């Protein structure tokens, strides 16, 4: 009997959740128009979003999707659990199709997932955009595949190069351990392109600063599967590369390397926070400051990194290469809106998809970060506001306009100025 009661309670609870889910009916936004009054938002669209993200940064992006973009474009989002592969993506796309979605934003970034997803979208008749950093050629001409938008991998590399050049310009020999994440194969669509170019940026910065003569081309060094020291040709400059997708494994493996005392800079292309405790322990035992540079997002973890002191009195995080998911989501939605309104071709280059790159911002020090962290905290402080979204949904806007917009936003100063935060 108790088991029957338990079953009944579960069904009742599920039904009440379902009722909660149905409470949010799409708003009637037919009165939303751009300043020129040319954007029709009277038609409701349901958009599937397959995400690989979780955590605070993704929650910020979700809030932006649901509270700013949804009412502006009369969209409704069906957001997935955290997915990891093509199988999960395809299954979720089918579920979204059954749920009535006519557009899809894919954040599952492996090339095979994008390729299979684009084909599936074409088969189901859903408009399809991908948030990633690499262009996938084999599906570039599929009619329903609109394009890609994500962190511009070359710009991420440039940001790393700039950040490192600043540290290396003091005339002293410096050495770095680089956790390069999924860099291996990133130039061939197998790993993460942004990780690949981040590592390339670091190696180029060292090469230019010290005139290093690597024993292999930089791309080959980054594509090495095994962790190890790079032959720099300079006994005072050490570079240790650690490829791997699991930060916890990397911490265990890199702790003894840090303990050698040969390295005074640590860089992580993602999850810098996973390493900070280990680095603090090493700083305490060696009595030496280790600078930390990492790819990060505008979120509490980054703020904590910039505001917390390490055992040597320096900040835990010294420089951050910042990415913003919300901005990429906005561009994805603009592309979808253009496609719904019959302008998919304007989002393509001669019928082929294009990669529109969101430029990363190199932030050196807590003062600049204190200004950057105000972004995304209110509707008017999102990088693209409802008004911007309507403007870029107008007829006549092309992918070049979106790319130009992102190029304009590449500078931290310009961005802060635009949002009145400088």
């Amino acid at each position, binding site marked *: *009997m108790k*088991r*029957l009661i*338990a*079953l009944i*309670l*579960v*069904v009742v*609870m*599920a*039904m009440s*959740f*379902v009722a*909660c*889910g*149905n409470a*949010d009916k799409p708003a009637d936004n037919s009165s939303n128009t751009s300043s020129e009054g040319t954007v029709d938002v009277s038609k409701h669209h349901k958009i599937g979003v397959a995400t690989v993200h979780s955590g605070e940064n993704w929650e910020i992006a979700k809030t932006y999707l649901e509270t700013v973009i949804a009412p502006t474009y009369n969209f409704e989002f*069906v*957001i*997935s*659990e955290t997915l*990891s*592969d*093509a*199988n999960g993506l*395809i*299954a979720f796309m*089918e*579920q*979204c*199709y*059954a*749920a*009535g979605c006519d557009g899809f934003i894919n954040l599952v970034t*492996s*090339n*095979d*997932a994008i*390729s*299979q997803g684009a*084909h599936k979208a074409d088969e189901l008749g859903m408009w399809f955009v991908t948030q990633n950093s690499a262009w996938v050629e*084999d599906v570039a001409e599929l009619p329903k595949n609109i394009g890609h938008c994500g962190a511009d991998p070359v710009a991420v590399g440039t940001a790393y190069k700039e950040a490192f050049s600043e540290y290396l310009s003091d005339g002293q020999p410096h050495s770095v351990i680089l956790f390069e994440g*999924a860099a*291996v*194969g990133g130039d061939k669509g*197998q*790993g993460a392109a942004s990780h690949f170019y981040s590592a390339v940026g670091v190696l180029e910065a060292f090469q230019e600063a010290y005139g290093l003569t690597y024993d292999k081309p930089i791309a080959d060094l980054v594509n090495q*599967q095994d962790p190890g020291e790079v032959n720099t040709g300079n006994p005072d400059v050490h570079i240790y590369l650690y*490829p791997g*997708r699991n930060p916890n494994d990397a911490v265990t493996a890199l702790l003894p390397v840090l303990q050698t005392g040969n390295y005074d800079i640590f860089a992580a292309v993602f999850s810098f926070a996973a390493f900070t405790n280990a680095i603090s322990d090493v700083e305490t035992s060696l009595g030496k400051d280790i600078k930390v540079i990492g790819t990060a997002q505008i979120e509490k973890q980054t703020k904590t990194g910039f505001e917390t002191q390490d055992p040597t009195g320096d900040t835990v995080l010294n420089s951050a290469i910042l990415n913003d998911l919300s901005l990429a989501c906005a561009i994805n939605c603009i592309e979808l809106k253009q496609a719904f309104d019959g302008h998919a071709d304007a989002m393509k280059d001669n019928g082929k998809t294009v990669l529109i790159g969101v430029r990363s911002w190199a932030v050196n020090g807590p003062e600049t970060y204190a200004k950057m962290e105000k972004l995304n905290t209110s509707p008017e402080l999102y990088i693209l506001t409802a008004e911007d979204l309507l403007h870029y949904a107008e007829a006549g806007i092309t992918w070049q306009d979106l790319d130009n917009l992102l190029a304009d936003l590449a500078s931290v100063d310009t961005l802060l100025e635009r949002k009145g935060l400088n």
Partner: protein
Amino acid sequence: MNEKKQVNPIKKILESRLFSQIMPVGLLLLLVLVFGIITGGRLVSPASLKIIILQAIVVATVATGGAFIFASGNVSLSLGATTILTATIAALAYNATGSLLVMIIVAILLGVILMTASALLSTALGVRVMYVTIVMMTMFSALQQAILGGSTVALPYDLVQTLTNNGFMYIAFGIFFIVCVILFHFTDIGRSLRFIGTNNTCAEQTGISKAKYLLIAFIIAGVGCGIGALLALVRGGSIGTSTLPSLNMDCMLALVLGGMSIFGGSKSYVYSGVVGAITVVVLNQGLLMAGVDSTIIQAIRGIAFLALVAASQVRPKGLPAPEG
């Protein structure tokens, strides 16, 4: 002195074989009905039903093979890793030869070989199946990592599309399922495995060789892994180290939700994996189509599964506790 012991009729119904057979199917039909109404019939449209079946097919296939192992009272934790490693090598075999036949043969043979290795290690070393399969799971995952590194192996989309449109998945699953039903419910193999699961000692005393039937169970499960690998390849078009990360747990969950006792034995049914896999998909898809947030879907699913497992998994009184 000869007074008859009072039996609670509801308890009697709950513990009856018929109830354990009907309950999972009834629950599935109830879910279909409830979500069919909530979604205004969209859940039960032909297109939606096709999607549900396609989404359940990989788990259903691997779980159907796994049912033979579970029926004997053993738990295999390497079904998922075996399937993924098999899929990886089968895809590489296709890319090397361009032959669909080679891919199918490699997948089924390799699935059988890998699962047989687990069974032989267990019987030869006298170590419980669960412990051996934990080791095998780790080994197979490491092997796949070594083969692929950070990359993935993909099949040409044309091949995937052709196999999907030609009903390859339905045919492969259908043949395997029918063979499994016959073996499990109409031959000595199924009866012996259920007997071993009910009471290992009694089974051996009546001349049933546990080692022999365990090996047979693993071979059948291996065929399931091989066919599951092919279906996973056709479904996703590619295989990487992050493909189907929870396949093993999904199979176990499907079996339990489908009415299979976690202790194996007489209340084991080969269709449990299919019913359970479809139940999971219907719950997911129904909630999604009803507009429930993905985080809430996870919570509902977790609570529902916990309650269902608690409701259906009580070891019958009088059976000895399983060893280990």
